[in-house]
Each structure stands twice: as C-alpha cells, then as structure tokens.
C-alpha cells in the first residue's frame, strides 16, 4: 500500500510526543497495531499511556487484560504521573478483565471452540460499540491466541476484530509477547501479517547493561520513521524516546 500523507483528523495521536513525531503525526485511525516485546519491555505501560492520553484528548478507550488481574494492573499504573484515576472512574478509560467476561459467557477458559471465539468476538465488538470507544487495547493477543486452537482461528479472529473496529474508527493496540532477544513479532507467526502496524520494543546490551529500544517496523498508510530509538520509562514521564546512539559497541 502506498504511503500517503493523512489529514490530522485521520490520525490517532498517541500523546507521546516523540512517538507521534516518528509516526508522522499519529497512528492512522482504525488501524490494528501489534505492540511486540518480551516480558518487562514496556508494552502494557505504552498501551495504558496511549489510552490515558487519548482520554485526556476526549477519546474514550477500553483496556482488555488477560495476563494480569485488574487490581495489579491499576496498582502498577498508579506509580505513573500520567495515570489519572478520575479517567477510570468517569468511564473515559474502561478496564475489563477478559477472563471474567469469558467465565460469564460460559466459555472454556483454556481452549476456545470456533463458536466460543465467535461469541468472544461479538462481545468485544458490542463492548466497543456500546462504550463508543475510539481506542482499544488487548493485553495480550498472545494469551488470547493461546486459547484459539488453530492458525486459521487466530487469523480469522484478528482479521474480523480488526475489520469491525476499523469500521468504528477505533484504533487498536494488541500486545504480543515474544521471548527476549529473539527477532520475531509474534508467538504464532500469524498476528503480524493481519496487523496494520508493528511496534517492536527490544533492548541492546551496552557494557552489560540493557538499553531499552523502540522501533516502528510497519505502519500501513503512513510515512513513518523506521529508526531504532532508545526508550525510557519513568514514573514522571512514562514512555519517552530518544535517538539511539549508534557508535560501534
């Protein structure tokens, strides 16, 4: 797909200044973006900051967690100054434990049948529609795909989810867990092909220390930067990006 200059209203600003610069303004609205990284790479923080910043700009969002209970998620996020509890209480940012939804739907919590996957897809779409969200996060798609039993089911699920949300002009981040120091974007090798964008959170070793890195690998319809940046996570500023020093290590 050719890269085109999108109008501002067609872009979903992350609110992370340096990231929006790398994205040439923001994520094309309605895109499904895979946020890839190993454990502790900052995927959840990035996604939450994206939702909170969106809410501060008046865009409602929803965060579906599968990997950790809500109380743990909120406790971790309270350490960040960008986190605003009032946005959760007011419903501008909705936090939903997908495991509880699955239980309530009577779905098998370990393996989904085709019907289970379809029911889950419907409920995700209904929630997004009912809440009128413009930003959605699933943390993680890896944990969700684990419950889908075949590559076809994974492909079908992500494709249908992405298409429905795009129709609602909802921009989606899916977190993808990969082993550390492996150059791969997903556990099942399918997720990256159905996604419109890929953001890779990695690290490099410098004198034995790990420097966090950030790279936009793909973003359909956007003239984005492909440079590898250094990434910082601090309680004061959340995610920040800086030009990575490239001298030979």
């Amino acid at each position, binding site marked *: 797909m050719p890269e085109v200059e999108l109008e501002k209203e067609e872009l979903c600003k992350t609110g992370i200044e340096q990231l929006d610069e790398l994205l040439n303004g923001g994520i094309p609205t309605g895109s499904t973006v895979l946020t890839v990284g190993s454990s502790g790479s900052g995927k959840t923080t990035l996604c939450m900051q994206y939702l909170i910043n969106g809410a501060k700009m008046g865009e409602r969002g929803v965060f579906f967690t599968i990997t950790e209970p809500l109380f743990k998620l909120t406790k971790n996020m309270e350490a960040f100054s960008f986190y605003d509890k009032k946005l959760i209480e007011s419903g501008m940012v909705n936090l939903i434990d997908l495991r509880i939804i699955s239980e309530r739907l009577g779905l098998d919590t370990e393996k989904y049948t085709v019907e289970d996957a379809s029911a889950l897809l419907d409920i995700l779409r209904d929630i997004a529609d009912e809440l009128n969200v413009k930003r959605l996060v699933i943390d993680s798609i890896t944990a969700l795909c684990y419950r889908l039993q075949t590559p076809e089911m994974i492909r079908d699920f992500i494709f249908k989810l992405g298409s429905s949300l795009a129709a609602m002009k909802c921009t989606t981040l899916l977190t993808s867990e990969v082993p550390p120091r492996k150059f791969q974007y997903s556990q099942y090798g399918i997720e990256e092909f159905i996604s419109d964008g890929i953001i890779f959170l990695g690290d490099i070793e410098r004198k034995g220390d790990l420097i966090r890195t950030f790279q936009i690998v793909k973003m359909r319809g956007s003239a984005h930067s492909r440079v590898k940046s*250094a990434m910082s996570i601090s309680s004061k500023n959340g995610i920040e990006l800086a030009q990575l020093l490239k001298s030979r290590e």
Partner: protein
Amino acid sequence: MANVLIDGLKERISNAVKINQSIGILLPGNNYSELVQALFERIRDNPDEAWVYLTVTKPYDNLMKSFPYLQNSKNVKFIDCISRAAGISRSDQDCIFVESPTMLEKMGLEIMNLFKEADENAKKYLVIDSLSNLIIYNDPEIVTEFFYQIINRTRARDIHTISLAIEEEGLSQYLNRLIYLNDKILKVRDSFI
C-alpha cells in the same frame, strides 16, 4: 592559596561563558576539587540562573555533604549517574538518579527535561562532570556521539555547556578529540590561574 585558585577559576569560567556557548575545561586531577568549588560558588551566587549538573564523578550525596549550601537550591538540579550503580537507592526532588553511566540516551533526555522545567528567561547552564569518567564507563566513540548530540541540542536552545575533562594517562587522545568539540577550551594549570 586555595581561595586564590578558586577566585581565578571563577573569573575564567565567567569570562568564557559570557562569550561562548560551550566551554571545555581540561584540568589535572589535583585541581578537580577547586574547580568544582568554583562552579558551585558561581551557582550559589547567581540564583537567577538555571543549572543542570550531571555527575559521573561523585555521588550527589557526597557533593551535598561537601557543599551543603547547595541543598534545596532552587537554581540547580542534579543528574547522578553513579549512585544507582553503586547500590544506593533513594529519591530526591533535586536529583534524578540514572541507573548506570552507560545509559547515555537517558542522560540526554533528563538534561533536556530539566531545562524544559526551568524559567524560560533564566540563563541556562549545563555541567558535565566529567567526560573522562564517561569514557571510563563507555567506549570513547559512543561518548563522542553523545557529546556531539548534547552540544548541538544545547546550542540550539541557547544553553551554555561546561564540560570537565580530568587529564588521565591513556585517555588523552580521546579527551583531546572530545574537548575540541567545544567553542572554547580552558586548560587549567596552577601557574596560569
């Protein structure tokens, strides 16, 4: 004798920053304490200026013990790049602790963040203490790239940079290359003060 040294250093620093955006100070190790004292007295005596002091040489706590008049100073913020690596874990409203002196990009981010918080109209100064210690913890090529970036960013924002380089055997070829990225070089020798 010490006071004469410090007064001489203060005067040389003042004169240099008046006309140059970035100055490099090359000094022997035995003049380090006097130079730091001269800088801190300058900071204390000019409360309208905004200073950021990046230390890779002495921990923040150690500097505060040696120069207690800087405690709670409104016009200086510190970035301590060595305490965390030494296992000291605490927070302070006047100091940002960077995990390791290898995290150069993080240092760059924090420097610019601190200057963003400073009064827009204040004259702004950055001290890098020191290039020689950055080279001890990192490869010289990456320190050169880091310093080049910092110098360019600070120049663009009208921030004066004062970078210290303590002469050490084996480092002179790298230090000479680095220090000459500055607009002006001060070579500190007892006899010149």
